[in-house]
């Protein structure tokens, strides 16, 4: 159809000469390709900024690509993977730290998040106001969260040090991020502070969707609150719990922000995580190929975890 051809569509007033762009769009909206037209821009953008780069990144992991030593660049097959999985001691430490950071982190965040959601679910104006306060840390930027806690745990000025000393829990102020034994746990506390509201948010929504009749029926049958929690609340929350745990694991594995800001992996390798290790390889050493291999391994681990986790939770449900 040429642009100058007159149209007699009922939606377009005849007084308009030619085809107005909006009128053309209206016409497209009546055609059979309307749905594709709606999603096409997103498909193009996702292909350009996500799928193409990711394929490019996977390809990089089979290449030697260092900006600092361009003469060696080229295809090297699985060499990076061999080095990473068989020889790299730092990667092994980072993998172990990540397991603790993510595993311990998710469990702690889940428990605190669930307890908060159960309390908030009581309802009422007080609890509504409280829910805004409880959710606040979740929307704060990592930079501010890092600064806040760095100040509170500071070895000279930290208010938490002062409180602990006054309560007799500590003999003197402590440099939490300088001691390899406390650096990772301290980081995990900050991660808990920022992360538990996510669980609260989604589980609160899950709790509100549970029918009150179920509890009344259980009460009539003589079940106490503890029994009701195990027999009704937890099973009903199950889909929400599965979804939030998966999302949170993915989020924690992929986010090097906090350690990047607070410790850069130190002291020694005490807070080295695989996400941070990949960032350091990419943007400190400019070893793009190796960073690519670390990312691909991370992705594979996440896929395997998600598949297993969903399968296990599904099996135990049946």
């Amino acid at each position, binding site marked *: 159809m040429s642009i100058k051809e007159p149209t007699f569509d009922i939606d377009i007033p005849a007084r308009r000469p030619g085809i107005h762009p909006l009128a053309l769009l209206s016409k497209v909206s009546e055609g059979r390709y309307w749905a594709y037209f709606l999603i096409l821009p997103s*498909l193009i953008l996702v292909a350009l*900024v996500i799928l193409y780069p990711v394929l490019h990144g996977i390809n990089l992991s089979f290449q030697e690509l260092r900006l600092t030593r361009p003469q060696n660049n080229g295809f090297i097959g699985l060499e990076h993977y061999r080095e990473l999985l068989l020889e790299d001691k730092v990667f092994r430490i980072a993998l172990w730290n990540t397991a603790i950071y993510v595993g311990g982190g998710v469990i702690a965040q889940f428990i605190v998040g669930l307890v908060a959601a159960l309390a908030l679910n009581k309802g009422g104006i007080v609890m509504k106001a409280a829910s805004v306060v409880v959710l606040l840390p979740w929307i704060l930027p990592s930079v501010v969260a890092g600064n*806040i806690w760095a*100040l509170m745990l500071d070895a000279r000025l930290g208010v938490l040090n002062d409180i602990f000393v006054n309560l007799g829990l500590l003999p003197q102020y402590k440099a939490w991020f300088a001691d390899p034994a406390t650096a990772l746990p301290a980081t995990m506390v900050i991660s808990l502070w920022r992360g538990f509201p996510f669980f609260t948010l989604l589980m609160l929504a899950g709790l509100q969707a549970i029918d009150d009749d179920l509890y009344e029926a259980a009460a009539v049958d003589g079940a106490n609150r503890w029994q009701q929690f195990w027999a009704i609340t937890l099973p009903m929350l199950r889909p929400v719990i599965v979804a939030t745990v998966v999302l949170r694991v993915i989020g924690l594995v992929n986010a090097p922000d906090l350690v990047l800001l607070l410790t850069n992996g130190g002291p020694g390798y005490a807070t080295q995580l695989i996400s941070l290790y990949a960032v350091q390889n990419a943007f400190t050493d400019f070893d793009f190929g190796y960073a690519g291999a670390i990312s691909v391994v991370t992705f594979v681990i996440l896929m395997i975890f998600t598949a297993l986790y969903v399968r296990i939770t599904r099996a135990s449900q049946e």
Partner: protein
Amino acid sequence: MSKHTSDQLWSLLAYVVIIVIMIFSLGPIVWTVLTSLKPEADIVTSELQYLPQRITFDNYVAIWNRSGYQRLISNSAVVTFLTLTICMLIGTLAAYGFSRYQFRGRNQILMVYLIIRMFPVVLMIVPLWIIMRSVGLLNTHFGLALAYTTFLLPLCIWMMKGFFDAIPPELEDAARIDGCTRLSALFRVVLPLARGGLVATAVFIGISAWNEYLFALMFTNSQNTQTWPVGLALMVGEFQLPWGALSAGGVISIVPVIILFGIVQQALVRGLTAGAVKG
């Protein structure tokens, strides 16, 4: 123990629990605000001051007038605006398409948009950095905004789809019987009804872009494009920024976030829940 006293005990327990958790959540934020109001001399004393004995706004003046700080804020505002424009325009259309129409590949594409969230950040940052450098988008506002769409567009689509799903299609059918085209039904019926969802999604996308640190650190390298999280982090490292000014800088940057979040919190919760739980 009678049922009545038992209920009261549980109620009491809920309030005690929530007060403890609120102290945990709010304590660090309150401490930052208190620190930002103290003169530097009172922050670095040997005897810790819990409440500021002298209140001053010098820290706010100092950080605001610091060279480059206002530029950081305006850079962040521009990048946030661009990210919002791209995500909301493209994301809203796509979400509406997914919500209303069945077509070949629909479920597969939705699944891909979900799996994308599993991609490690570095897997995307490195190649994206190489690509943007070769097309000249590195160190530009638009380039950074485009990089943000990698994780915000799929999220935006899933959230908005949840809001559109909640609007009965019968309303559009009625409008179409009255002679509306699909396009005008979208603009006259659906979008006005989804207004709350649109605002909540926009606020969430905006906050995420405003707060983002890692991409901004890698994709900007000069004062002309650096955003405030990067600038603030660099000030700490390079200039040994005093704690008072640092706290004030943090407070200035999170005030808009907290206000917006407070306003749209309820709608936001609904949208996130719809997207995340179904996913």
